[in-house]
């Protein structure tokens, strides 16, 4: 056995519980389980196991346990097991490693070093059970005069939208579930850059369509079918590099959506070839506005990078109605590991400096700010909004709500939960209605939690939290970081 195949996980099957039903064998899309007729038992190829836990969830008798492989490499806190494995894989293949989901490295989380305030005596908390608390959120240009008749942007009922995930990176079923959920919640989902499937057109009022560098599936009717159009410049997981949907995922249906021949790689180059500079961005923003008769807000999505404040300021001057900023923890269907793990900056800092810069330049009211990339719970939502975001976009959390266990193997196209796959057999595993119900539930629960937070802060609407950094205190953050966040240390 080659050294890189030393299994990371171990499949343990309790012989006394196993009834040899072979359900686990069929459920494992990675081929890690096999029924051995001679021995009349399930045997595992542990090096193929990705710890997705599909077999564990489906085993009728609870006979399966997945553990970390207890075989331990000689300990070394610098040359960790991960480091050594990464080298072995490259040594064997000569290629960069492709990975999925947001970075799994242990970078410090700023969200986890921020605490929210609460009312005590000097002002009263508001009780969300009895009193109205509003989460309605406006996304768009707010600088237009109140007496103007220019169209307004979009009102959404919760400050949470679903981030861009293309048909190709996720299944049509997963996209449908998000569209249904967005409609029920009165919010938006984003179809990413893979075109808009005919089944999703009825959900147009709740959909953001994307114009990315590959321009897949982009045409006049596509732009006009949606509530808003997003120009994708970058993505937190892979800033500065293009997208790459491997040919094996370009099925007949996906090729039709993307308007490329079946089986070819769908390549999104790193830049838009009509945007080599900031004034070119403005050209594309207005091209889209012309094609949609100025009836749709145009958002621009960028990855949070070092100069994000200046970049955002340039975008706000380009005529765009919103900026989506994706932090370095943002997820991906597939990205080169070295890019995902080393590029970009945290969303918390990015939102703070962008909000500051836009206010300093008098541009904040021209654009909505949407924060994404690592929003895990309603506490993160509240903190992102207090730092200055109008709303957040969630993607990984929505997939986890559908049943994703974050095995981080989306790039293989073998998602056993029917989410990040185009295999018809696997796709059939995702029940659209059930997945939509769970996503709706997640956002409803978070909304209730947000109202509880607002109530504790004595606020009857989310506007009072937006950019209100008085409501945040930092713990364990250095002085410069606190200054950049515009947040005082706890106790002050």
């Amino acid at each position: 056995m080659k050294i890189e195949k030393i299994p990371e996980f171990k499949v343990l099957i309790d012989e006394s519980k196993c009834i040899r039903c072979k359900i686990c064998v069929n459920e494992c899309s990675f081929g890690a389980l096999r029924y051995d007729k001679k021995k009349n038992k399930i045997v595992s190829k542990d090096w193929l196991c990705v710890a997705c836990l599909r077999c564990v969830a489906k085993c009728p008798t609870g006979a399966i346990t997945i553990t970390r492989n207890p075989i331990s490499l000689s300990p070394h806190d610098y040359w960790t097991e991960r480091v050594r494995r990464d080298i072995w894989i490259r040594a064997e293949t000569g290629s960069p490693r492709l990975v999925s989901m947001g970075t799994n490295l242990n970078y410090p989380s700023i969200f986890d070093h921020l605490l929210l305030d609460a009312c005590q005596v000097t002002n009263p908390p508001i009780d969300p059970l009895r009193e109205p608390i509003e989460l309605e959120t406006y996304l768009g240009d707010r600088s237009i005069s109140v007496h103007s008749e220019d169209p307004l942007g979009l009102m959404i009922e919760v400050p949470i939208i679903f981030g861009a995930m293309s048909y190709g990176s996720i299944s049509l079923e997963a996209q449908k579930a998000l569209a249904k959920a967005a409609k029920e919640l009165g919010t938006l989902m984003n179809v990413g850059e893979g075109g808009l499937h005919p089944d999703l057109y009825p959900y147009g009022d709740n959909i953001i369509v994307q114009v990315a560098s590959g321009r897949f599936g982009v045409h006049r009717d596509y732009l006009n079918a949606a509530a808003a159009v997003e120009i994708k410049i970058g993505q937190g997981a892979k800033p500065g590099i293009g997208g790459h949907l491997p040919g094996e995922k370009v099925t007949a249906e996906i090729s039709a959506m993307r308007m490329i021949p079946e089986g070819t790689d769908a390549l999104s180059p790193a830049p838009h070839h009509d945007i080599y500079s900031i004034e070119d961005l403005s050209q594309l923003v207005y091209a889209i506005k012309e094609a949609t008769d100025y009836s749709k807000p145009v958002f621009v999505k960028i990855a949070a990078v070092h100069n994000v404040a200046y970049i955002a300021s340039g975008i706000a001057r380009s005529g765009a109605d919103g900026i989506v900023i994706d932090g370095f923890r943002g997820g991906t269907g597939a990205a080169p590991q070295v890019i995902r793990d080393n590029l970009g900056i945290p969303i918390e800092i990015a939102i703070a400096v962008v909000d500051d810069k836009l206010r300093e330049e008098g541009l904040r009211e021209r654009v909505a700010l949407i924060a994404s990339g690592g929003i895990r719970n309603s506490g993160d939502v509240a903190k992102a909004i207090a730092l200055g975001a109008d709303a957040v976009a969630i993607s990984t959390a929505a997939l986890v709500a559908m049943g994703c266990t974050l095995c981080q193997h989306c790039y293989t196209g073998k998602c056993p939960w029917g989410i990040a796959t185009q295999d018809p057999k696997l796709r059939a595993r995702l029940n659209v209605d059930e997945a939509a119900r769970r996503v709706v539930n997640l956002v409803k629960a978070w909304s209730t939690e947000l109202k509880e937070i607002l109530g504790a802060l004595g606020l009857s609407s989310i506007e009072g939290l937006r950019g209100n950094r008085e409501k945040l205190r930092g713990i364990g953050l250095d002085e410069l970081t606190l200054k950049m966040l515009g947040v005082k240390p706890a106790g002050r």
Partner: protein
Amino acid sequence: MSWGARVKPRPEERSRVPDACAIAAVASLSGNLVPGSGIVEMLKAMGPRYNGLGGGFAAYDVYPDFPDNFVLHVMFEDEGSRREFERRLGEKFRVAFSEEVPTRSGVFEEHPITWRYFLGEGGEGFEERVFRFVMAVDEGIDGAYVVSSGRNMAVFKGVGRPDKVAEFYKVESYKAAMWLGHGRYPTNSPGWWGGAHPFNILGLSVVHNGEISSYGISKRYLASKGYKFIFLTDSEMLSYAFDYLLRVEKLSVDEACKVLSPRFWKEIGNGNEFLKRLRIRYQELHVNGPFSIAVGMRINGDLYMLSLTDRLKLRPLVVGMSDDLFMASSEECGIRAIEPNVKKIWRPRAGEPVLVKVKRSEN
């Protein structure tokens, strides 16, 4: 030389102080001049609402000899600050008349000196010039603070019970068409004289009761529009918010109230496009959290008195009307203290502005 009392915090000393209060306001609807003793009586009736760490008054149409002059009331910690202020003032404006604001000795052991400067000009763009000058002084001269800057009006305030502050400034000796009064209950005692209410900018003065939960974002918004925050109090922010909406954005008083205390989205619905636009455009100035306020203002020469509560009605407000007087107060006893048989008395609904116009006084 320093006189011992502080007028304002230095930048490194600035911090937010929660406070609670009694507010009171009285205006003559016909523009008659009423003596300052009334507003003092109103506040005295609400003694338990303040703790002696701040009191103050605003008076409109108070200088009959200078009816059209902008007048700056400026507190000084020391003689050096006054000299620096007067040097800068002389560079920017012609002063028609100036004098030290008379005070009674023996009321406070330590106190700053207040001067008033009647500016001898006016006309197009003058308000904006005064505004910029006030901001520059507040931010730029350590021992000076402009407590009021409107036309024919004054603010008297200090650290102490409102009746003591009144005694100190001889408030009973002034007559005005419109008065605001305030008794403060801060949680601690920073001791800056400028931090007492009312807060004023140009013709606009605010007394406030409550703590504004959305203060942080409103402050950031107004700071980006050029407003300087020295005291980090809600009333300072509210005076700027009104000034911005009325003077800069040219909204009507009613529209400004709908910005500060908006209807709920469900009430706005899809029908009222204007209310929707108003709420979206100025979302940072949606004043969230408990407040009741009385605001005195001069718009295009006319005096107005406004009272308003937050949209959840988390702070008290009572208003009363007699033949010539309009009164607003935190508690009914304030009104009864000066008009025991007030004709009409009511509690305005949440977020519903009560606005009265003071007839232009003929004298």
